[in-house]
């Protein structure tokens, strides 16, 4: 058992460390492990939470007589040894975004920060394909990788107290979408009319870790039609 990969986050959670660097391949391994545990759970398994370079496994210590940490580590070793190689299937999801200035409050600021026109920012933002590493922060909030460094911009000095649901933003080298209205410091460049939460369905979020997404520019009229349809 290679103990250094395991960290007891608490008495009922083990964080498995997959190493320092983040990559799409590593993310696929993390998500594959998560899926294999979920499909074939050990007694006492509660849930697992992926992040950039870790998978955290929550369990109920009541199911173990003593030293549950050690026993769960041994179980996780077995999953890791028997893990099939990255068979994680990615979907491609297209997300319509209206980059109109009435939604993209900070589009101008992002453009001038990078010496670009607003059209160039929009083009660069919708050219790349993004990878959903995991969801967190708020329900359905995707942590995305793959943004063009030419449109990176620092967070707002004074965070907004309320960013509307659907807002698409940039913070440093990251881009993301706010599924629910929340406070935040991201530079807002547009808004999607698509709901990232579908709380009556399983799963309750539109995006899943491992998905690929593309942004597609739509007009304000298309945005309004989408909302009312």
């Amino acid at each position, binding site marked *: 058992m290679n103990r250094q990969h395991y960290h007891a986050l608490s008495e009922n959670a083990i964080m498995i460390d997959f190493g320092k660097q983040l990559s799409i391949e590593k993310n696929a391994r993390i998500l594959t492990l998560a899926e294999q545990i979920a499909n074939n759970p050990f007694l006492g398994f509660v849930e697992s939470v992926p992040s950039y370079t870790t998978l955290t496994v929550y369990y109920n210590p009541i199911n173990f007589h003593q030293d549950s940490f050690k026993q769960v580590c041994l179980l996780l070793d077995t999953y890791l040894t028997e893990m099939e190689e990255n068979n994680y299937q990615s979907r491609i999801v297209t997300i319509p975004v209206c980059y109109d200035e009435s939604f993209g409050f900070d589009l101008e600021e992002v453009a001038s920060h990078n010496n670009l026109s607003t059209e160039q920012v929009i083009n660069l933002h919708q050219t790349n394909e993004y990878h959903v590493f995991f969801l*967190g922060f708020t329900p359905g909030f995707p942590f995305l990788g793959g943004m063009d460094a030419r449109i990176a911009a620092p967070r707002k000095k004074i965070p907004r107290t309320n960013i509307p649901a659907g807002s698409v933003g940039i913070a440093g080298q990251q881009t993301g979408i706010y599924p629910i209205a929340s406070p935040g410091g991201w530079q807002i460049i547009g808004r999607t009319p698509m709901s990232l939460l579908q709380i009556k369905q399983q799963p309750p979020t539109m995006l899943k870790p491992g998905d690929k997404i593309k942004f597609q520019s739509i007009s304000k009229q298309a945005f309004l039609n989408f909302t009312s349809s």
Partner: protein
Amino acid sequence: MGIRIIEEGLLTTVQDLGRFGYQSSGFSVSGAMDSWAMQLANIILDNDKGEAVLEMSFIGPSITFEADMIISLTGADMSPKINEKVVKNGKPLSVKNGDTLTLRTAKSGIHCYLAIKGGLDLPNFLNSKSTSLRAQVGGFHGRKLVVGDIIPILTPIQAASFNWSLSPFLFDYISSNDLTIRFLEGRQYDWFTNQSKQHFETEAYQTTTQSDRMGYRLKGMPIHFIHSKELLTEATTFGTIQVPASGQPIILMADRQPTGGYPKIGQVINVDLATLSQVRPSQSFTFLKSTLKEAQTLMNTRQQQLSSLQTFCTLKWKEWDRCK
């Protein structure tokens, strides 16, 4: 048929043991801040220990019962009265249709729990009745309770008064003056200077008034990093002690986000979460380092204690059933 809020209090929400299975979709676990007191409120009534209850924080509400029922109160002492008559925490209380429970400001601690025998008649959202305030889901319409709300209950029960109660010693942690919160080393424990690690264990910390169900913000000796390093966002849990750039720690509580990007100096051990949740702003406490082995043993002992209290209460209710 239910309980009607006639005076609001400061923050009253419906909570159970939390929403598990959806953290990877970004949903907070939520659930009771003090799950020890919350489970005991249910155990007193022979409910499932994870049945949804009302969590009432800082200032309690006033409630009119719109059916006969049996209730229990645990946790913070909010000077409970039923129809102006003083009643006690920690025992079954029989109330009649039209009776009013009044609660005041907590005398010590923060959170008081009200359980109803048979439970609340509310729908599950993603396997739980816990209110998640930020996402506005679960509990009673995803929000705190306000004047005029009627929370339906499942089973009205008529009963005479009860002459037994749980030992008040079970709730001693709420009024204790000598507060020590034990912790395990966090994953980034080595990121902090030796001096700061020492301060963390010897200096007194207090929670600030900016604290809420998501996190307790601390003030005290600032904690310094050896180098400034960026942490890639990773999982957090109830009791995770994060240190942002300001150096003033934040302890993540029930409504925490599933993931966070601040380095973790420590993790509050499970059996001390109840104590921590009841610490009032400006009340001082100190941290003490524990080990995983000690924390696991304490947690097992606590579980056994809960089971034996459950056995005791179940017996009391069997007697009651026979004598009815």
